[in-house]
C-alpha cells in the first residue's frame, strides 16, 4: 500500500528530506514505516500524526495514509 510521509523542523534535517512516498505491506504500523524509511531508532520524544491527527507508533496504517514525524512543538 502507498503511504505519504512528511517530516518537519529538525526531523526534516535529520532525514535530509521534507517528504517521500513509500510502499508497505498491508497491516503495517507506524513503527514498521519508520523501520523502512529510517536508519536510526525513532527518538523518544518524536510526535506522530496520521492524516493530521496525533497517534502513536502502534497505529495500523491503510492505503493512502499521510504520516508525519516531528519534534516537540514550539508555537504560541
Amino acid at each position, binding site marked *: 500500500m502507498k503511504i505519504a510521509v512528511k517530516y*518537519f523542523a529538525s526531523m526534516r534535517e535529520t532525514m535530509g528530506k521534507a517528504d517521500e512516498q513509500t510502499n508497505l505491506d498491508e497491516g503495517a504500523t507506524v513503527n514498521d514505516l519508520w523501520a523502512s524509511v529510517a536508519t536510526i531508532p525513532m527518538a523518544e520524544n518524536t*510526535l506522530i500524526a496520521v492524516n*493530521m491527527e496525533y497517534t502513536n507508533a502502534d497505529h495500523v496504517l491503510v492505503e493512502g495514509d499521510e504520516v508525519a514525524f516531528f519534534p*516537540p512543538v514550539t*508555537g*504560541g
Partner: protein
Amino acid sequence: MKVIVLDGEFDPWKAVSEYQNENIEDGKHGASVTFIGSMRDFNDGVDGISNMYLDHYPGMTEKHIGHVIEDAMEKWDVMDALVVHRVGDIKPNDAIVLVAVWSEHRAMAFDACRFIINDLKHRAPFWKREASDAGERWVEGNSIDAVADEHSNAKPK
C-alpha cells in the same frame, strides 16, 4: 469561530476589533479575554535574537486549532473565539499569536482563553527556529512552560 494562519505581519488589536464588529452580536457578551504572544529578542540564555522562522504543518495546524476551539466552546459555553497565528519570518516585537474569546461571564472567557493558548503551545504543530549572533537553532520543546502551566497563577519574580 475563526482560525487564521498567516505568513506576514498583523495588528492583533485591529483583528480583535474587526472580528467583534463583524461576528459578535451586540449586547450579548459580557466578557472578552484576549491573549497576545509577541516575539522577545532573548530566549533561554541567548540574547540578541535578530529574527525567527516559524515552521508549521499546513492543514494539520488549522485542523488542530479548530478542534481545540470547539472543545473550549463546549466546555465553557463560550460564544465565539478567534485565533490568529503567524508563520514564516518574524522579527522581535512582532505579534506571533492572538487568542480572543467572547462569553457571557468573565470566568469562562479566562478559562477558555488559557486552555486554547496552552494547547497551542504544547500540541499545535508549529516550530520556532531562532537566529542570533550565535547562529541558528531550533527552539527546544515547550517543556518549561509545561511546568509553569501546572500552576494557574504566574510565578512572581
